[in-house]
């Protein structure tokens, strides 16, 4: 798993609520057996004027000039500023894979769908939760400031703007530690293999029908 400690970068806007994972990465791009290469199709239906299919060279496709992230001032954005319930819908991990592959390291929003939020941490993308009022402030500053950057620090759990305004965010300690260190979660769980085996022995005694039927 990729680690995340601190990131400073250009901010790009996604100014609508309930952005779903079909919007983040449309289903035709899920037909891949790889984890990489989804970036050119991030927000595909909003970003391009034509219909996208896997395997195209996206460099030749007509861009939607009205889509914010296509505007020159947001090119190279690595922090996505979004609205509430970001990432709702499907459990596809292709959504954080696409965000990460595009170059986003951080998403900032007032709330996230549970599965998407969880998936971000597995891929070195930090989903920051700020209040709706704080997100409103950031949207206003972003609109008013060309080249608007933010500094996001996971250890101190802060988002800092160039005007030295500091926003604190909270998150679970276990998620924080995993992301800070980039530890192999499966390896960590397997340290407890004896406990898992012991659980299974007791379970098989109490609920034997759980095992053995599927073969």
């Amino acid at each position, binding site marked *: 798993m990729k680690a995340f400690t601190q990131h400073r970068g250009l901010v790009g806007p996604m100014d609508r609520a309930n952005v779903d994972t079909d919007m983040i990465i449309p289903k035709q791009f899920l037909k891949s057996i790889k984890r990489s290469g989804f970036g050119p199709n991030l927000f595909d239906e909003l970003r391009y004027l034509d219909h996208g299919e896997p395997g195209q060279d996206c460099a030749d496709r007509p861009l939607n000039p009205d889509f914010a992230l296509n505007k020159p001032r947001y090119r190279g954005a690595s922090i996505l500023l979004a609205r509430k319930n970001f990432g709702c819908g499907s459990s596809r991990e292709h959504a954080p894979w696409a965000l990460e592959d595009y170059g986003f390291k951080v998403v900032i929003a007032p709330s996230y769908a549970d599965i998407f939020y969880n998936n971000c941490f597995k891929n070195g993308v930090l989903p920051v939760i700020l209040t709706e009022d704080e997100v409103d402030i950031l949207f206003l500053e972003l609109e008013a400031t060309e080249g608007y950057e933010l500094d996001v620090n996971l250890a101190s759990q802060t988002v800092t703007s160039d005007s030295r305004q500091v926003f604190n965010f909270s998150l679970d300690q*276990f998620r924080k530690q995993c992301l800070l260190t980039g530890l192999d979660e499966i390896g960590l769980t397997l340290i407890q293999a004896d406990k898992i085996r012991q659980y299974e022995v007791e379970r098989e005694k109490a609920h034997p029908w759980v095992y053995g039927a599927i073969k």
Partner: protein
Amino acid sequence: MAARTLYDKLWDSHLVNENDDGSSLLYIDRHVLHEVTSPQAFEGLRIAGRGPWRLDTNIATPDHNISTDRSEREAGVSGIPDEISRIQVQTLDDNCDHFGIKEFKMNEMGQGIVHVMGPELGATMPGMTVVCGDSHTATHGALACLAHGIGTSEVEHVLATQCLVSKKMKNMRVSVEGAVGLGVTPKDVVLAIIGKIGTAGGSGHAIEFSGSVFRDMSVEGRMTVCNMAIEAGARVGMVAVDEKTITYCKGREFVPKGDLWHQAVSYWQTLVSDDNAFFDIEVELHANDIVPQVTWGTSPEMVAPVTALVPRPEDQVNKERRKGVERALDYMGLESGTPIASIAVDRVFIGSCTNSRIEDMREAAQVAKGRQVASSIKQVLIVPGSQMVKAQAEAEGLDKIFIAAGMEWREPGCSMCLAMNADKLGDGEHCASTSNRNFEGRQGKGGRTHLMSPAMAAAAAVAGHIVDVRHFLSESMTTGVNS
């Protein structure tokens, strides 16, 4: 011991360890795999030199991107015309063969949409933890399972360790009391719930559905309701065990028999929330208030009774919501004030993990029987949820009713619910759909989805536009479609 909810009991009985950092290691009884979210997980196992923790907890089937066309299906995996779909299905077969995981292959009896297949085979049983790389896994909660969707990294984690690192959710109870009227189905009940609590109303919570409406509802109907918990933001939806649950499980392929059956049943009967158990959020609806529901917008919470008008953005007090309604109406090509029961439909889709079980097929057939699809309709797809549903429907002659009405009877799969295969909407087309998501582009770029029940979708196919199915039912005076 303090009074516990059903969710508390399921959580407690699967705790392997409570870690120092506030997380818990939760044991997973059943892991259901499909072709789209598993290949990267198997690849991860291979790269790390790991294998599955055990085999008899896993079950797999292809469903998301396979063709529902009979001749294409008969051509087998090598005949799948779309190369990348073929690679995905072949990769699932190869991975299951390589690691020894039980798979119901594309054309085998038992294959079906993951959330139809698991319960109908008895692979998922009450009291189990069930996960799958698909957000509609909550469906299995209708059997009092703790079931939820996971991402691909977690698919790999469960394969390798039989556990998930989890954090306990909060408890939410949605109660619907009373009895629903003729023509009001489980789909209408869950759409009404989503309309009330919103698409993020259940975030961070496990929802238990309770009250007389769910007690009276069939187990398949409960699956329709639990299936859409995620559309209300909740990863988990559940209904407590009762006699219907036990009757449903009896005799299914992987369910125990003899003494073991009796032992299981006596445990399953404890899987109810204790009196006085604490719920962080309680929501109540009344069955009398629920009429057939239809979505008019691009989020499942944008739903209204079929008798209503398309809403006006200016009636929204919240600025962001107003913008959302404006954008949705623009995408849907709808004018405020239009009666919902007049919106013309181009295609109809009856299927998906929400509504493709035998009762859904019967519900749609009851409306289609002796009627004809309107001439303005381009296509009506009837896609059974599994090979077993298909066989049962054909044994009952339902396929003939659909075909006589001018509808297409297809092979089992996810089909136009997410349009990963050839079943999709054209730009600007309206669809009466029994699926679960009306997101922009979900059923095809520019496609406009109206979610509704199978009975309502069949009625729309006949009328050529959205229509209140209750007119059809009183006309033909058949039995109610409410379960």
